[in-house]
């Protein structure tokens, strides 16, 4: 009963913002009216923002990019990370393992938000850049966890049997090890996803990698701060949405994680 309750708390927190983020853009009228900046009421449900746009419309528009960038970059880091880890763990040559793993240690030595700001500051602005950077930041952890999982699986007797049967490397690695890994990795997806969301939102807030008037919840928070004394909605609503999304995700995935009796963040 209690676990049901905790699932539902997490679930409800996620579903609202997620639905809003994904379907929101479809509910925005084609012609947007502009009013005076930072007014409340006057035909605008939540008032207007720093350039006089309707806050409610911006809220509808602003979630999709955030969620999409986080999801795509997480998927990308897994795609690259699993292949990377498999090559490192399944190789018979020790030096290949070293060559593949050492560079990641260096990446781990640099704080993630610093990597983000550095690369975004000097690369071209845009969603693709942000996706690539966040994927890059997630990569070392994904590879480390995947490699540990692969090494454990590679020492199982089943694998030895497959080798004796003369199965190809490809079939062993992809057909057996990779499939067994996915189950272990599933427990870690939540952490990676919230990290990505955290990074994307923080970067957008700092104005790194996004246009300054982008329709994005985190950018809204930053831009509408100046009018906090006049109308709070342009700041408070997107902030609460981001928080609900992340807290909900965490609570939901924590249920999955807690079955593994491990604390690892």
């Amino acid at each position, binding site marked *: 009963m209690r676990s049901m309750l905790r699932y539902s708390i997490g679930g409800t927190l996620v579903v609202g913002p997620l639905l809003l983020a994904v379907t929101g853009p479809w509910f925005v009228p084609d012609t947007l009216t502009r009013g005076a900046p930072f007014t409340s009421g006057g035909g605008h449900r939540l008032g207007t923002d720093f350039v006089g746009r309707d806050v409610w419309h911006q809220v509808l528009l602003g979630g999709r990019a955030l969620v999409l960038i986080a999801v795509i970059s997480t998927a990308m880091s897994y795609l690259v990370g699993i292949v990377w880890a498999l090559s490192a763990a399944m190789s018979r040559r020790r030096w290949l393992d070293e060559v593949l793993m050492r560079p990641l*240690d*260096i990446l781990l*030595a*640099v*704080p*993630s*938000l*610093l990597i983000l*700001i*550095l*690369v*975004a*500051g*000097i690369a071209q602005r845009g969603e693709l850049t942000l996706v690539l950077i966040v994927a890059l930041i997630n990569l070392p952890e994904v590879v480390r966890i995947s490699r540990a999982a692969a090494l454990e699986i590679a020492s199982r007797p089943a694998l030895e049997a497959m080798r004796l049967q003369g199965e190809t490397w490809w079939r062993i690695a992809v057909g057996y090890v990779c499939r067994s890994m996915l189950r272990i990795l599933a427990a870690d997806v939540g952490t990676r996803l*919230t*990290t990505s*969301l*955290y990074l994307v*939102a*923080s970067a957008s*807030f*700092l*104005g*790194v990698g996004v246009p300054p008037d982008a329709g994005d919840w*985190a950018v809204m*928070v*930053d831009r509408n*701060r100046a009018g*906090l*004394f006049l109308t*709070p909605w342009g*700041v*408070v609503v997107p*902030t*609460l949405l*981001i*928080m609900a999304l*992340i*807290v909900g*995700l*965490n*609570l939901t995935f*924590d249920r999955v994680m807690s079955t593994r009796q491990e*604390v690892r*963040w």
Partner: protein
Amino acid sequence: MNFRRYVARRLLIGAGQVLIVATLVFLIVEALPGDAAVALAGDDPDPDRIERIRSMMGLDRSVPERLGEWLWGLPYLDFGVSVVSQRPVAEFLAEGLEPTLVLATLTLLLLVPLSLLLGVVAATREGGLFDRVVTAVSVSLHAIPEFALAILLVALFGVGLRWFPPTAIGVNGDLLSRPAVLVMPLLVLLARPICSISRLVRAGMIDALASGYVRHMSRLGLSTRRVRLAHALPNALAPAVQQIARTVDWLLGGVIVVEAVFVIPGLGTTLVDAVAGRDLPVIQGLAVVFATTTVLVNLVADVVAFRLAPRVGGAG
């Protein structure tokens, strides 16, 4: 492995990491289209002018030559000259250092005892109300972006209730002169790390309390307090110490965001400004400083963890 050899090995690895990061940062910046001279020429991108600036700044020399010179300057705290203001980068760093250091030190000073207390108390009452509340809150809070928490606090306590000043404008970097300014930034900085570390202390403590040697100690008739604090706690701490080091990563991210929200002129603000102005030498210098700090803190943490529970460090 013996202690001295362990420290020496970690020092060597740490120095290598810093060197590689510094080289990478230099090369990444070097690989960009448009160098410092183009940035400096600004609105007047006349090729002749760019060429003159380039030779004036020594940018027309080969990459390895300049990389060598730059790396050679690092131990002497010579990070080059800002392309925007022509001041030495070291001056920028020195200016921003104080507020950031104040924030980071105060955070760590509060973080360690608070998370220890929460973790130990939760562990000794495993499954109780206090434990469940602490766990639920830390699971919820630990992934909230600092900026969201900061803005919410500002909206509530700064603008709504007017308990604390909403920004640090007017304090001019001397944060300690007006402690009220520090309350909200510290709350924001503490929120995330306190969750993860108290949870780790709790988990380590529960493990230690259930172990054979602790039961043996109790059987020997040592007091509960002595068993918990003198014998179980040090073993529970080793993973937590390493986690504290890893939160320096979070702390730094937090500091950048917190400085931006509360308008504190620290290193984070310097970085964001430098990126906005494409002041590449300043960005390079900051990257080296931040990477060095991270490596150093991790090193200290590994050494402390090795001291607390030698088997943990010896494995790595």
